[in-house]
């Protein structure tokens, strides 16, 4: 998994200055945050369901090996095949092998973050197989050569105008020469192009929102129905997903299906909920004749038994992104990682290594809103703090920060040092203040005064004044 978090600060700055992006990001508030709040309020049982969902996922992760075995047995019994991929390279090779056996030239894909994680599209292209994204958002960024900026709304960073330009630029070769600007017309145009691709595809690749151990089903939710066409029209269906997507039973799956759309888009249910269980049976009218499930580990099993195990409960609803004040101000691309926002800040270092993730777990004010909305109650700030601890232990945090923290803990431990620091600092602040206010501070303080003024304390510390006034100590 490619991670480019090094330029986070610069990319975030650029994102804050990008008026088009800022306008597009405003959609998060109404489209997601308010929609989720309304959906949760409509369902009195919502909070109790979150507790149950947390417990179901925690139980599943604790017994993952057993449920994976049960899942594989059920897929096999229904005529499908499960493939185990330790890492991205293995997953790509397995998928390539299946495509080659099917003589595939084009592959339709429904939206899947795991295929982003394993960088499947460039790999298929290198091997002369054309991947076609069929989720409208994914289709748009594929045309633009971009990466998704949100795990459920990949084009949240784009304006309608930008999409109109993209369609105008790319749809000419399909005979569409007018630049459409009206939403439904644009959708109709994309759909008519995608319909032809659906019919011609040799292999369909989907992700999975859930895997059901007791039936061997892969469950996919969409609002466009594109997963159904991806899975049913070609002769081969490949499901690619992470091992943590498992739930034990259909009942458990229904619980998750009630929480996922409400947390994600505020919908009670998505337009399509599809259960894919094995290949076409003899009396089925349609469906693929071969059904494969590629289960990706890629660092997930290493999280088990560590403080990061809780992250394996994640159902990729995106609520933590939508409610994050950092994400909602800078968008997803600044993170330089497939998984952005709070969930990415925890997951990316687990999958790619903390040495590559640098800023990700640090760029958070720990406001805790992500944890407050996470449907499976993952304590995201706590897990980010654990990553900061790992960075600190391994001396990966900047030396200035380390020095400052050490100095501060020494000052705090010694009343004499604390007093003299206060004395010096307050005199310095008053010296550089005008009318009691400071507009520019040196060193780390520059970060403060770059954005806001600072009021210089008028007198001595509270404790000093309290003592002078004879207060009880």
């Amino acid at each position, binding site marked *: 998994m490619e991670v480019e978090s090094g330029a986070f600060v610069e990319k975030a700055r650029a994102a804050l200055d990008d008026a088009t992006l800022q306008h597009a990001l405003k959609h998060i508030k109404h489209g997601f945050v308010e929609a989720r709040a309304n959906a949760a309020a409509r369902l009195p049982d919502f909070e109790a369901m979150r507790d149950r969902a947390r417990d179901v996922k925690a139980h599943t992760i604790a017994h993952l090996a057993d449920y994976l075995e049960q899942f594989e047995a059920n897929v096999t019994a229904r005529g499908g095949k499960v493939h185990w991929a330790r890492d991205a390279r293995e997953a790509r090779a397995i998928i390539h092998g299946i495509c080659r056996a099917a003589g595939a030239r084009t592959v339709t894909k429904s939206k899947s973050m795991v295929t982003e994680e394993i960088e499947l599209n460039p790999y298929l292209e290198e091997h002369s197989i054309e991947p076609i994204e069929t989720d409208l958002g994914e289709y748009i960024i594929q045309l633009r050569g971009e990466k998704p900026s949100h795990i459920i709304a990949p084009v949240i960073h784009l304006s309608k105008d930008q999409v109109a330009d993209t369609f105008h630029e790319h749809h000419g070769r399909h005979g569409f020469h007018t630049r459409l600007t009206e939403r439904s017309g644009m959708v109709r145009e994309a759909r008519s192009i995608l319909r032809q691709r659906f019919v011609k595809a040799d292999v369909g690749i989907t992700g999975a929102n859930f895997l059901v151990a007791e039936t061997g089903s892969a469950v996919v939710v969409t609002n466009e129905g594109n997963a159904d066409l991806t899975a049913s029209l070609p002769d081969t269906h490949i499901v690619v997903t992470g091992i943590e997507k498992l739930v034990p039973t259909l009942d458990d799956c229904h619980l998750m299906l009630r929480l996922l759309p409400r947390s994600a888009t505020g919908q009670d249910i998505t337009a399509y909920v599809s259960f894919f269980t094995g290949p076409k049976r003899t009396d089925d009218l349609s469906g693929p004749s071969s059904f494969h499930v590629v289960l990706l580990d890629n660092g997930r099993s290493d999280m088990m038994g560590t403080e990061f195990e809780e992250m394996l409960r994640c159902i990729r609803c995106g609520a933590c992104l939508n409610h994050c004040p950092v994400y909602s101000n800078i968008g997803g691309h600044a993170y330089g990682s497939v998984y952005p926002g709070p969930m990415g800040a925890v997951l990316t270092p687990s999958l790619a290594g903390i040495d590559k993730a640098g800023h990700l777990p640090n760029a958070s004010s720990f406001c805790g809103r992500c944890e407050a909305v996470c449907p499976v109650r993952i304590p995201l700030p706590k897990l980010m703090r654990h990553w900061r601890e790992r960075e600190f232990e391994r001396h990966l945090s900047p030396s200035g920060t380390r020095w400052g923290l050490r100095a501060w803990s020494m000052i705090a431990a010694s009343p004499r040092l604390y007093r003299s620091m206060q004395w010096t600092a307050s005199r310095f602040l008053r010296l550089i203040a005008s009318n009691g206010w400071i507009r520019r501070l040196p060193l780390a303080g520059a*970060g403060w005064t770059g954005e806001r003024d600072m009021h210089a304390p008028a007198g001595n510390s509270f404790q000093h004044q309290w003592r002078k006034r004879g207060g009880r100590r």
Partner: protein
Amino acid sequence: MQTKPEAALFVTCLADLMRPEVGFASASLIEAAGFDVVVPRGQSCCGQPNYNSGDRRAARSMARRTIELLEPYEYVVVPSGSCAAMIKVHYPLLFDEADALFGKAQALAGKTEELTVFLERHGYTPDAAPAAVRVAYHDSCSGLRELGIRHQPRALLKRSPSLELLELAEPEVCCGFGGTFCVKYPDISGRMAENKTADIAATGAGIVAMGDVGCLLNIEGKLRREGRDIRACHVAELLAGMLERPDGR
């Protein structure tokens, strides 16, 4: 004559160093609620900056110091949601259950209260009603989400007959302070503060009150940089009628 119970004021390093007025305002409110105020000698920082930056070892030793300092008192009051949450929620997580300090941390967690929670629980009624003002209340993230502080400060403010309490459109959104976050990521933090001051201004309030000196310094500094004519204060300063300052802010 019955002696009053004693309450220890843990003033927090930010208030101590940057906003001593908050210490005095808190002390006078705690007294008005019927307690004798003690300011335990030698108090400093609760350890949050170290804890949140991954320096767990230093955080633990700072916690140990605070735990021992506050051990003798029956009531501990903190005029900050985030420092109170550090003590109540995070201190016990810093020690092994086998460690003697774990029990002490739990005991301290149990008796520590954030100021508005303390005042509300002890039935404090403001006597120095502030002048007729329109006040917006800003929730600090830790207080709100880690300690569930929401109605207490509002209830206290509403008891002042002349005070009109106004709600922000997005009360659950962070102001961008976040401890070291605001100096490590100034651009993002600055934008968050900007969104917050715009939300405050939209209420039409003349004063924005809050329960954390961190948020206060951030929001006050942003309001001032933007040249907005809105005053920021700690809720204690407002309740204690201490808003008039010699520098005329």
